[in-house]
Every structure is written in structure tokens, then in C-alpha cells.
């Protein structure tokens, strides 16, 4: 079943590429895969969450992640308020130390390939429900991509993330998500820094080289010359009396 569907998607992708080629900038926003909505500037991915007292995940929509392709920080999250029912459920789940899970579908963030590169399955993450309650729904969601722009993981943390058993009295605190969302792409690991080092070495060489050249013969060997001179003086001062004596005689 799985290979069949993927080949089906591949065929569609070819037709779309052909379509683009024919009609240049005319994009009518075909919706091939229903959970990825594309438009001219970007596309959106559904963010789903689940929190159940029995801890069996039943995911439902939390919001939509708007992604703008090829742009830094081009990600926004639009999400609805938490309903009355959900709020009490969340508190119940927190009371039994249940989990709050989120998931996003596996997609590629490169918008030109979004339709053909929708992969099967989801990426999931979790936090303890109590930490979400105690932080008054302030969470940080990070989408991780690989080098080619595929989503490979999602992570969620709340700030603060500890469960201290603090009671959240005010229902209003649990109504609006205060979410920070970001996309994290892999950083380039540094290669050995040779250019700078060579430059530094050259500078050192220059520094070393110059004073040596400037030093004259006397500056280099002054102590030898001085020593020699002192020695000569000493010997000559010892000899003259004898010489003098001979001269006198």
C-alpha cells in the first residue's frame, strides 16, 4: 500500500512541474494533500495536540503553523483559545501527571517541493501536562529541519518547566497559549581554521624577522665584545709594567 501511494504522489508531482513550466507565474494553488495548504508566499502545517486522562493519544487541532519558504524566522503560529472543556480536561490531566503531546506532519519546508514531498507519518513530542498548566500555557515549540529542509523533529518546552504543584486558580490563565515558535536548521560545523592561523603565523614571522635584521653586529654580540675588551684590558694592564720595564731598560 505504502509504495503504491508514494508512486501516485510522484506522478502528480510530475504533472505539477509540467504545469508550472507551461504557465510560468500562474499558480492556482492546487491542493493535492489536504493537510498542507499552499499559497503563493508559503504554506501552513497543522499543529495537533492531545491530552487525555487515560493517556491514550487522541490528537485534535491546536492551530496552524504558517511557514514562509526560504526566509529566516518565517514562521507564525495561529491558534485558537482553549475551550472551557479543554481547560478543565487539561487540569485533570495535570492532576494525574499525564502527558501533553503535540504532533506535526512530516513535510518539507522547501515550498516548491511541498506537494510532492509530503511524507507519511508524524513527528511527535511531549511535556508533562502539569508544567504546561503551571507555566500558564507559555511554551516554546521548535521545528527542526535537516539540511534539505525536511522536518525531522519537533520539540516543546515550557518556561518554567518544573512542576511544583502550584495551583492555577484563574481559568483565564489557561485560555490563551503564549507560544514562541521557531525553526531550527542544522548549523554548519566549522572546518579547521587554517587561513587565520597561517595569517597569524606570518605576522609572527614578520615580527620575529624584523628586529633580528635590524640588530647590528654590535647589538648582537656586544657582551662578547665587551667581555673581550675587558679581558684585553686586564691582560694589557697586567703586561705594560713588564713591557715598560723592558723599554726602560
Amino acid at each position: 500500500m505504502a509504495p503504491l501511494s508514494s508512486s501516485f504522489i510522484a506522478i502528480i508531482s510530475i504533472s505539477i512541474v509540467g504545469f508550472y513550466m507551461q504557465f510560468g507565474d500562474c499558480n492556482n494553488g492546487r491542493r493535492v494533500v489536504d493537510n498542507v495548504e499552499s499559497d503563493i508566499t508559503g504554506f501552513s502545517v497543522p499543529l495537533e495536540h492531545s491530552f487525555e486522562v487515560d493517556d491514550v493519544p487522541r490528537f485534535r487541532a491546536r492551530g496552524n503553523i504558517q511557514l514562509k519558504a526560504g526566509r529566516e524566522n518565517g514562521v507564525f503560529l495561529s491558534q485558537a483559545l482553549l475551550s472551557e472543556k479543554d481547560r478543565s480536561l487539561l487540569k485533570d490531566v495535570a492532576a494525574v501527571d499525564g502527558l501533553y503531546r503535540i504532533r506535526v506532519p512530516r513535510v518539507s519546508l522547501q515550498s516548491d517541493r511541498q506537494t510532492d514531498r509530503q511524507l507519511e507519518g508524524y513527528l511527535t513530542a511531549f511535556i508533562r501536562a502539569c508544567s504546561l498548566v503551571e507555566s500558564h500555557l507559555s511554551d516554546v515549540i521548535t521545528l527542526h529541519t535537516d539540511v534539505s529542509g525536511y522536518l525531522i523533529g519537533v520539540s516543546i518546552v515550557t518556561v518554567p518547566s518544573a512542576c511544583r504543584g502550584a495551583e492555577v486558580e484563574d481559568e483565564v490563565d489557561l485560555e490563551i497559549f503564549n507560544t514562541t515558535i521557531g525553526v531550527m536548521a542544522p548549523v554548519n560545523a566549522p572546518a579547521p581554521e587554517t587561513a587565520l592561523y597561517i595569517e597569524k603565523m606570518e605576522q609572527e614571522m614578520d615580527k620575529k624577522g624584523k628586529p633580528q635584521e635590524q640588530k647590528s653586529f654590535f647589538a648582537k654580540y656586544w657582551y662578547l665584545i665587551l667581555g673581550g675588551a675587558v679581558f684585553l684590558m686586564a691582560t694589557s694592564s697586567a703586561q705594560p709594567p713588564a713591557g715598560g720595564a723592558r723599554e726602560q731598560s
Partner: protein
Amino acid sequence: AMAGQLAGFTVSLCLLGFTVAVFEDQVGKFDWRQQFVGEVQFALFDTHSQASKKLLVATEKNIFASLNSRTGELFWRHVDKMGPEGHIDMLLMHGQDAVVVVGNGRLLRSWETTVGGLNWETVLDTGSFQSAAFIGLQDLVKYVAVLKKSAISLHYLSNGHQKWVENLPESDTVQYQTVYSGGNGQVFVLGVVPNSHIVIVEYNIEDGEIMKQNSVAAPWMSSLKSSCVVVGIGVLLCTKMTPILLQVTTTLQFSDVYSRMREQFEFCTSVLKWLMSFFYFLFQSYLVSFATTGEKTVAAVMSPKNETACSINLFSADTGRRLLDTTIIYYMDPNGGKPTKLYVHAFLKKDDSVGYRVLVQTEDLVLNFLQQPGRVVWTREEALADVVTMEMVDLPLTGTQAELEGEFGKKADGLLPMVLKRLSSQLILLQAWLSHLWKLFYDARKPRSHVKNEVTIETLSRDEFNLQKMMVMVTASGKLFGIDSKSGAVLWKKYLENVQPNSVFKLMVQRTTAHFPHPPQCTLLIKDKDTGLGSLYVFNPIFGKKSHISVPALPRPVLQSLLLPLMDQDYAKVLLLIDDQYKVTAFPSTKNVLQQLQEMASSIFFYLVDASQGRLSGFRLRKDLSTELIWEVVIPTEVQKIVGVKGKRANEHVHSQGRVMGDRSVLYKYLNPNLLAVVTESTDSHQERSFVGIFLIDGVTGRIVHEAVQRKARGPVHFVHSENWVVYVYWNTKSRRNEFSVLELFEGMELYNSTVFSSLDRPHPPQVLQQSYIFPSHISTLEATLTEKGITSRHLLVGLPSGAIMSLPKMFLDPRRPEVGSDQSREENLIPYSPEMMIRTEWFINYNQTVSRVRGIYTAPSGLESTCLVVAYGLDIYQTRVYPSKQFDVLKDDYDYVLISSVLLGLFFATMISKRLAEVKLLNRAWR
């Protein structure tokens, strides 16, 4: 001036001594090496002279070596390339020279066997190698013939030059498999058309012209190689284990062939005569081997005697008669395997009778060399050439120590019994001390050479600093070894039968020796690579005995095993095994354990890696021992594939939480015990586009802590993950060199929660620093040193393909090394950055004791904080100790006790005398 200072600083740092080299008189004092050759494929005895001790072997590991047949030690050894390129196809020996065909008929080499020097080497034409043989002319061997699938070539033995090469007739239908020369100028090539007939082609030795061509019907024959051997003058003898009757007829037909060809009818009858008596033995024998000495050809036949022993008998190949007084009884090791190969060395005794020695190889790769009447001259454990995994286990306390320990361990049962127990244990101590004194006195009277501290299993006990340990080694053949780390002596061995050759082993120490009177316990998980089905073997690592504990049955493939820090009431750590339906099996699974697991379930997490789908997933244990999926990370396999996942070692201690910086502030380390380092390689191998990916993932929450891509790089990637750092080595495809890269993780200037670490409560991502260096050599393996408390600075142990083990200070792999040194960085002892990492020969911890094909390095802490025990294994095994921060807690060997004590005594007396004098003086003054 600045530069001079800088250079001086660097030099002084280097001088400061990362010198780990040994003194000449320390060679072999703390280290030992054992060299192996692997499973023997060919073995030849030097029959050139009577006094020769040479035994030439060629092995499955592409090694050609010479053993001393008196002691079993290596004279010399040549290690060729791994894989089919270095495979030894054939080994022939003539006089002082050995001719070897290597790499499926790619190379023909001649070696001088006394010192192992290469005489010559010739590259052969391509073609699948079949056989090779010496070709004689007037009883003088001058040529060597190499038979390939479709051609035969003749080479001079003196220089390897080709004399002629000829194509074989009908080589597409006939499988030519044997080449043979009678010794007077002909070359016979034997081929077989399976289950149809045998083809015999005779070539002229001078020009390679076909002299005769013959074919004989042999419908029973499928292959010449497996069951036939040419013995004597043009006789092909075939042994077949299927019915005797057929055997007789087959041999008849075949001798018929030869009689027609060589017109020697009398031979046929002589063969018939002895066949009848011989076949009785052949039918039930294990192994047959032929040897020729002088004019006599003999066959040694090994047949089972009873359950534990085999008998080897010698038969004359001419008459088929059993030679008198030639029986050797071979006793099989109850912890070993059955014999698989037999090699005979026959020689003529003074009275012209035939004497012989045999080399027996068993399933578990033991080489036994026996001589009449059954004495084992030497034994080699060649399974150790292929160590897969190992652990080091502390030795138990001595009986007296244990007695004392036991006294404190047991519950108090009244005052009087306690007093009595104390008295009795004191008595035992006294007794032990007296016997020790007596032994000292006794040994002192004996000449020094006789005093040997033989290590046996009975005398094993922990030394003062826990430097001597038991090395438990698991080999690919399924044989387990217990080796004393001090001497390298094999103290116990156990061959596990029915282990598939492609099994994966995981060795775990469930209970250490610290819990007297409970014996230590190791568990070996054996997993079939194809089916994933696993089994457990539980044993005592000190004595090698199988434990009688009932082991859970594992009907489903095992995906993951997990040793928890939880212990049952008998102090055995709990092992969790996760099967392919994500069900968890606990071992041991007592009530106590299950109860603990239920309580702890919500905080037990584990991860699974499916490299084929690029999927990493996290699970949490439920109270009913089922699991729930809690996180998932999927790295698309179209772009990159996972090549390695490593967590941190469970027994690792980190002494300092942070690093003190130049300005006296503290940079805290990110010490996440659940962190996983995942390394990937790109599927695109183009040198510009290939890359190596490094992911740091929290194993509990699935949070990707860091993600980096090393561009223009490819594997093989070796990496070490420890403390707050990951070091990896890769190949830079653009610059064509090996490079080291180090990642270090820091929490920052403030610690989020200094008392306890929880993956669920660390909201801030760590700061990641990274730096790379050029390394001038390839790398075989990488490991980090480990010490008891983690105070000692860390070194990386790098196994190089040259066989050297290098101890590289971690200090040189520090991403905080500054481009330009400042006062602060100097205060912090940071070495200014230089892109190239030198290999200093004094960093080699194994001086000239190279470890061939090093595959792994195992490190274990000792009782001394300064000392880390190191075992490098590959083809050889090398054990040593390293002192990454020098021996700061040990007095030197040449410490001058006499001087110190005499100075102390002198000072003591001086004070006494001066005190006395002062008193006298005071008294005198008082009188005045």
C-alpha cells in the same frame, strides 16, 4: 616579544609533560600483548630438516605466519589486507621457501621462511584461482604451476617469472580443480564435469603443449576439491562419507583412470588390498590427514573414542596397514568444541619407523599441538583474534576479607553471637597472617627463580588498588574467555555451541563483586542478526560457570536492552528487554522487581533506533510492562542515513560541574546523562555534496538539543560521547584528510537546577561550542579514558591503523582554544589554537607493541584515581595502564625510602639530643 612568549608558552606546556612514555625497565611491567593469527586454513610443517621447528600457517584472517612448533609462539607474522584482496588461496612449501597465492589468484609470492622475508612477488593474470602445485623435473622442483578457471601458467620458482601460460580445453564445461606433477616432467591438470566424468590433461613442461587428454566416467563425482587428494605417484584418493560400497567402486574406477594413464596396474591391486581394512575407520572417522616423510606416505585418522576423547592412528598409505604404537589420545575440552581440522607432521625416527605429531584445530578455534603418546605440547586460543565485546569485572575479596565483610553485612543476632563471630573472624585473620608469614619465610629460602606467582582461579583476589581485574571477553566464534588483566593468562573459557556466526553480542554486568555473598553475575545477550531472535546466557564472570538462574524465554525479536540502576533484593541490576511488539521483559523478574518497576514505571524511558527508516522513537514504560510511544524523530533516509548512536557510559563520573574561567567565573557544563549523539552520513557521496550530520538528542524527551552538519565530509565516522562533549573523526573529501571535531555543551554562567538533573525540566538549550582540527593519520578506533571519580583529566585513546595506540590529551581538543592567546586564556591553561594536531611519538602508550587491526579499545577505572586500565583488541590484545594526569597519587618506583626514613630518624635523634642538651644547659644556668 609576544610571539616569543607565546611560543615559549606552548613549548612549556608541551614540556609540562603529557609524556606517558615508559622507561626502558618498565617495559612489560604493567602491560602485555598477545598476538594471534585466527582460524587456520593451511598449515605446513617444515620437513626440510629434522631439527626444524617451523610451522607455517595461513589463516582466514589473511595472515601468513610461522609458529615455533615446540612452544607455539610466533616466529614472524605477515598481516595482509582485509577482505578478499588479501585472502590466501594457497600455501606451498619447498625447502626454505614458501609460495603463497593471494587474492583469488592475483599475486604469487615467495617467502623465505626462516626470517619471513619476501623473495619475490609476481602479479598474475586475472581469473578465478583453482589450484597451484610445484612441478618437478628429475626430482628437482623448479617451477610452480598456477591453475585458474580457464588457464594454467608455469612460473620459475627462483624468480617468479612466467615460463608459459596456456588456455585449458573446454574450460566452460569442465571445472579444472587440481594440478599435479609426478616429478618427471609432466603437468597433469584434473577437471571434473559434475556427476559425469573426469578430465585429465597432460602438458609438456617445456612449452606447455598438450601431450595427452583423457576423460573417465565418474557419475558420482561432484567436486575434486572437497574430498580428493593426490597421494604418491599419480594416485588420487577420494574419501566420501556416503555408503562404503560406493566408496570402493569409486576408488576402483579412479585407480583405473590412473592405471590407464600411467600404466601401473600393480597400484590398483595394492590400493584394493588395504582399502577394506581402512574403510572401517574412514567410515566413522572425523578427520583424515596425509603426510609424507622420506619415502613413506602416511595417513592420520582421527576417530571418536568416547564422549570426551578421540584417538588418532597412523596408517601407511601404501599398504593401508595401521602402524603399531602410533595411537594418540586427544582429550576434548568439556568447555570447548569438536575437532574440525587435522594436520600431521610425520618424521622418521632413528630406527626408521615413522613418528608423528598432529595439530588439531577445533570449532572454537583452539590449536592443539600433540605428540605421542598424547601429550599436549602447546595450545593457542585463536578465537581471541576476533574479540567482539568485553567487560572488566573486579576480582572478589579474599576469603578472610569476605568473612569480615560478611560480618558487617549480616543482621545483628544478639550480643554473644556477635562477639563470638568477631573473635572467630579475628582468629581467621591471625591464621591468614601466620600462613602468609610462613609462606614468606618458605619462599625466602628457595632460589628466586623458583618463586613464581602462578595465577590460578583459586588464588584470585583483589589487590590493594584494584588494578588487577577479570577481563571477560566475548569472541565472534561464540567463545567466552576470562582473562587475568595483570598477566594475560586465560583463567576460564567457555564455548557456547549453537551460536550463529553472524550473531550480535551484548555483555552486561548485572551484579558486581561488591555484594558478597552473592556471586557476581554477567549476562550475555546473543542476538541473531537476521532474525533478531535473542537468548540470554547468564554466568559468573570470575569462574566462568553458568548460572542456574532461570532465564526468561524470548520468543520475539529483541529490539533493545536496557540495564536499569534498579536492583532486586539480591543486588542484581534489572535488565529490560524490549521486543518487536514493544512488550517489555524484565530479568530478573521477581515480585520485588516487578513491584519496583511499577513504582518507577513513569520515570523509565527508553529509545529505539530504526536506521533503515531513519526513525528514532522514545517510549515510556507503563505499569503493566507495556509501553507507550511518546516522541518520534524521523531523519529522511533519502538524504542521510544513521550510522551510529551513542549515549554516555553509565559508570562515568564527572567531578566538576563547571570550568573555572580566567576571570574566576564559572562556566557550567551541560551534563545531561540522557543525551544521545546520533551521527549520520549523506546518501549522496559526491565529494562536494557529501556531509556528516551530528544530532544531539535527549533520549527522554526526544528534543533535538543540537544539530550540526559537517560539509564535504564522509565516513567512516568514529566518535566518543562523554561528560559534556562529543568528539568525532571524519574524512574531509575536499581537502582529502582526516579531521577531528569536538563539540562541547555548556549551560552558561548559571546553573538552571544545580541539585538534580531532569530532562523534563531543562527549558534552555545549551550553548554549543565546536572546533575542528586536522589529524595526520587515519583512525581505526576511538575511546576516552575513564577514572574512578573523574578528577583526573581526560585523554582520548586513538587506535591508529599502524598499530599504535595514542593517548591524546583532551586538552588539545577543546573548542575554547583561543585564536590568539590572552592573559585570561593563559590563566585557564588554554592552548592557543592551531589547526593541525601533531602526533607525538611519546603519546604512544604501546611503544613498539603494535596492535594489529585494532578494532576496539576498552577502558575501565581502577582503585587509583590516577590510573585507567586500557585494553586494545583487534587481531592482537594489548593491556596497559594509562595515567592521564601522571601518577599523582602513587609514590614512584625508585622512591628513596632509606633516605627519607634515615633523615627522619636522624632528625628525631637530633631533636632528642638537642632537647637533652638544652635541658642540661638550662639546669646549669639555673645553678649559676
